[in-house]
């Protein structure tokens, strides 16, 4: 077994029958984990498979594809990308031989085109050129909602306004009442804000009404109870909103705000220092115009 695989929690888990999750490691991308840091997986229907997030690199995508092939011979009909971040989509090209339909948020094609050179350079510097891979531009776009059928298994896809990113998409597996939340849901690992803070809190309200009993977070364990599993994230985002608003109201500039806002959450999250300052910056930029 190669060191890359050994360092990797490659075993699939099934939080619900037919919902297969490969839990990502809680770390930044390294050559050892091959950017297998996000929760990715697939849903198995009677007539085919839908991949939900093809992985963080070509290597990561190939590993997921091998796991699927070890599970079923049914065709991989769909590859659904929950948003534009590389740790979720750079494995997409591993699935090109299967000729699936690639699905994403209506803004995803532009976001991928805009980000790709930058994300590729950053990731290739860590993983090496050959292993990096890249996204595939989706051809089936979700403007609001869309249903796909895997054979007696209907998946309800929903596209949202700017929240974690401006390309967020969720998938509800109606048969098991399992919500694949992508990075709209972080559990354990500190949420990363790359979209709109007030928008994200609004989207969490929308998602709370989804008829699911569990959700699969984009980062965290294979599943958390729904909607209670979003409580920690909502608290963090609310603290961030409150602290950054207070910093702006008291005339604090952006650099002292980054040092202070959200600090009360420090001990509650993994990788807090790697993201909180960035989150404060993004939130400040948004909230300074309220």
């Amino acid at each position, binding site marked *: 077994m190669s060191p890359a695989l050994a360092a990797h929690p490659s075993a699939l888990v099934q939080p619900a029958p037919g919902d297969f999750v490969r839990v990502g490691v809680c770390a930044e991308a390294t050559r050892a984990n091959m950017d297998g840091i996000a929760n990715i997986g697939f849903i198995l229907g009677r007539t085919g498979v839908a991949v939900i997030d093809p992985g963080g690199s070509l290597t990561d995508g190939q590993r997921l594809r091998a796991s699927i092939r070890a599970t079923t011979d049914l065709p991989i009909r769909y590859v659904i990308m929950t948003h534009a971040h590389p740790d979720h989509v750079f494995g997409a090209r591993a699935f090109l031989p299967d000729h699936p339909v690639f699905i994403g948020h209506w803004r995803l*094609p532009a*976001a991928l*085109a*805009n980000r790709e050179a930058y994300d590729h*350079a950053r990731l290739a510097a860590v993983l090496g050129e050959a292993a990096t891979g890249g996204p595939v531009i989706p051809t089936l776009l979700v403007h609001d909602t869309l249903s796909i059928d895997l054979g007696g298994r209907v998946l309800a896809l929903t596209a949202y306004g700017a929240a974690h990113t*401006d390309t967020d998409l969720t998938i509800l597996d109606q048969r098991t009442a399992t919500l694949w939340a992508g990075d709209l849901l972080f559990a354990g690992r500190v949420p990363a804000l790359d979209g709109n803070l007030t928008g994200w809190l609004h989207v969490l309200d929308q998602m709370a009404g989804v008829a699911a009993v569990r959700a699969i977070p984009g980062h965290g364990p294979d599943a958390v109870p729904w909607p209670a599993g979003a409580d920690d994230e909502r608290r963090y985002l609310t603290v961030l909103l409150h602290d950054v608003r207070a910093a702006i109201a008291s005339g604090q*500039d*952006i650099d002292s705000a980054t040092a202070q806002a959200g600090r009360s959450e420090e001990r509650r999250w993994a990788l807090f220092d790697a993201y909180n300052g960035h989150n404060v910056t*993004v939130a400040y*930029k948004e909230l300074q115009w309220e």
Partner: protein
Amino acid sequence: MGMNARLRLAASFGAACLAANLGMARAAESEASRAARWHDVAAAIFSHRPITENSDLLHLEAPPRALDAALVPVSITIGPSARIVALTLVVDDNPAPVAAKFAFGTLADPHLVKTRIRVDQYTLLHAVAELQDGSLVSTSRFIKAAGGCSAPGGTDPAAALARIGRMKLHLLAAPVPGMPVEAELLISHPNANGMQMDPVTRLYTPARYVQSVQVSQGGQSVFTMQGDISLAEDPEITFGFRPSGTAPLDVVVDDSAKTVFRQSFPLAPHGS
């Protein structure tokens, strides 16, 4: 620096802001090549005038590792004894290295200037002050950041355009005529550098950026700033000034699309 000089500089450094991998390669650059670059950039901007490094007189503060390459807060403090007339902020490795040039007027108290910049790659940042006697002094700082020029983000360009030209002024203390006071000016402007893609049309958003910001009170200048694409979206300037009387503070912003935005901010009388 005029548009032509900016374009010349951009051309001479290969410009390709989108080639982030270039930035990665440059991360490994030696100190010697950084010094050589600064030599070239400084010669182009200041027409070969001698520049003396003086980090006692001039202090430059910036995060060593940027949290967000598209918004790097920078703060320059100038020693109380120094009499400066102009201040230039240079991001050596950006496609357009001059981020801002301030010319201070009679009401300025030029001992603190803050702004927010974009940083496209690991780079030296220079502040160069022109003293009353015409001499130039500089200080520098190294920043680790990448992708500020083309850095992807969740910003909605339509929302940014809807807000364009909106301004906010925040005084950090109550103004007293003749006494120095700090103020923060915030200008809503995409400051688009032509390197971001419009998510709807998938065409590159044409460059549209703030070219000048003039702040004055009762016809007396506080400062004029010439900006460029290296300023962050929604340009922010913190500055010091000595209010003269109670006239409002007038702000005039010109952008590269030949649009002029004006706003007057009344200065609330102290103690009322």
